[in-house]
């Protein structure tokens, strides 16, 4: 496998890791605050639909992005209402959101566009175009560094850069600010936070809202960045992969970045059976490559990569003592 092929696989990994990274960080905020969220998939899907639909109607991808974030936020608040205010089961609420999003998006798409649950294809300003970083063409001829900068780092849609910047931002917010400390505390020991006179409800709601915004970005990237339309069920389980990455990352932002890149890389690898064959000298069945991310997930969940300890108060609704 030559350098350029490797670069292309990495390039593809970055694109495929981006939606995972957004969703993974979304889950990180929510779960660090003690709210398990298996509705990432549904929120992504809803955001994908609304971003594509509004971008198609308005002709502006930014309107689409806002609509996508709005839709995801609305579902997040439903989840919050069910699991924080009404102290319902967080897993059930998440499952319900997944079903709701899967059905609702197709239904609305059919009623708005009559294209069998699809949105029209987006073009021009209605989608995120690839941006070329400065000097990308100038440095292309420098060996190694040139192609890496011009092909791998440059030439993605803006949301990719936003995703990667969200990682240090998340780290800073969670580990260097008062809000972050309280948010983590509310996921470990909400009673202590409450005793200190800080509202558990408000903290958990803000975590769930951040989760909604990030899922919105993830879905919008799928429908308006990577692709240029919405198709039913287009999130194809990425929300669940992101959840697995979150556990793999032990609920830490930098680990989340590496976990998502690893999953992105495995997905990119499954697109290139020829390259895998060239390296391993064995014909690896495509089905096995497709299954790799899932096999890895099972291995991870079985605890082979060290113990992953979730936030202690995760999944438990907080009942204030009277």
């Amino acid at each position, binding site marked *: 496998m030559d350098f350029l092929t490797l670069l292309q696989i990495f390039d593809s990994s970055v694109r495929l890791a981006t939606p995972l990274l957004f969703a993974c960080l979304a889950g990180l905020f929510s779960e660090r605050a003690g709210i398990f969220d298996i509705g990432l998939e549904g929120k992504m899907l809803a955001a994908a639909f609304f971003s594509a639909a509004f971008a198609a109607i308005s002709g502006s991808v930014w309107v689409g992005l806002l609509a996508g974030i709005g839709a995801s936020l609305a579902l997040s608040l439903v989840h919050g209402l069910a699991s924080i205010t009404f102290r319902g089961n967080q897993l059930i609420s998440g499952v319900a959101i997944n079903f709701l999003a899967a059905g609702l998006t197709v239904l609305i798409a059919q009623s708005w566009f009559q294209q069998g649950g699809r949105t029209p*294809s987006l073009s021009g300003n209605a989608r995120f175009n690839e941006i070329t970083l400065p000097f990308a063409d100038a440095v292309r001829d420098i060996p190694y560094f040139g192609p890496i900068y011009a092909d791998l780092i440059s030439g993605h849609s803006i949301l990719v850069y936003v995703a990667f910047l969200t990682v240090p931002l998340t780290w800073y917010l969670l580990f260097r600010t008062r809000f972050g400390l309280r948010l983590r505390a509310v996921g470990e020991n909400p009673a202590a936070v409450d005793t200190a006179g800080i509202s558990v409800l408000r903290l958990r709601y803000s975590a769930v809202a951040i989760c909604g915004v990030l899922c919105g970005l993830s879905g919008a990237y799928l429908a308006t960045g990577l692709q240029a339309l919405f198709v039913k069920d287009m999130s194809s389980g990425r929300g669940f992969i992101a959840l697995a990455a979150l556990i793999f990352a032990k609920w830490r932002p930098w680990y989340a970045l590496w976990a998502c890149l690893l999953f992105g890389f495995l997905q990119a690898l499954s697109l290139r059976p020829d390259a895998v064959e060239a390296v391993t000298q064995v014909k690896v069945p495509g089905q096995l490559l497709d299954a790799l991310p899932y096999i890895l997930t099972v291995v991870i969940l079985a605890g082979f990569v060290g113990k992953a300890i979730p936030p202690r108060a995760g999944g438990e609704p907080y009942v204030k003592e009277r």
Partner: protein
Amino acid sequence: MSYLKNALGGAAALALMAGAALAEPALMYDLGGKFDKSFNEAAYNGAKRWADETGESYQEIEVTAEAQRVQFATRLAEAGYNPIVVLGFQNAATVEEVAPKYPDTKFAIIDVGWLDIPNLRQITFAEHEGSYLVGMLAAMASESNTVGFIGGMDVPLIRHFACGYAQGAKAVNPDVTVIANMTGTTPAAWNDPVKGGELTKSQISQGADVVYAAAGGTGVGVLQAAADADILSIGVDSNQNHLHPGEVLTSMLKRVDNAVYDVFSAGVDGFEAGVHTMTLANDGVGYALDENNASLITDDMKAAVEDAKAKIIAGDLSVVAYYENDSCPALEF
């Protein structure tokens, strides 16, 4: 009360339908809806063409949930519509249940060829022949001598498409490289345009400059990625040339419209039961040529394809079907 209301509503609907119909044909769409720009819409076009030409009318009904299949088919039969065309292999169980109960009603089903019911016409398509022709076009249009195929879910039907395509491409140029990828092994593979787009990009990086998508909703992602990268793509089922004018080389047509038109035209008297295969010979499959791709298909290409088409019809050239021995002479999966 609500049960009574339902029953009354149902009876009213039935009465309405019964009043309108006597030996009018009917069409039952599959999930996906009438205007899906593909399979169902093709059927609608066939029915409409028949109605426009004959001046007669037909009944149509859209299935929107699994539970409605048998219910709707029964209602159509009960109301006296004849013949009734049912779309899609997912309705095989529907006609298996309904058709024997109405032996005097003629049924037809598209994409099913394995049932044994006397009043049922089963229509299948020779997708490998159509794919062979677009494979030839792909190899002729390719400048890099590399063409790609992207399938949806890895099932024999899609391998059948890929196999015909590879044979066509190799017939034009024995040295051509055919890269074939499947999107996945679960039904999610039909609706993953993101992965379709990434597969297209990876095939482009391997040198492909024409990519054929037989992948349902994933295919639109393939066509999009190909258009973005300024390479050619090939659509499937219905004519998808208009999706990216000038960048879709052609589309492999599956003439569901002709199948529906034929059944409607034959009516009850001309109805023939049994399995019917729509091939190149009876315009059941083909390649699309319209104003959107006129500049892409040269006269030489057209002549070569028409020549092969004539040979296939005459039986001088045989395209091996993947089904024959579950393997493909031109492509390894």
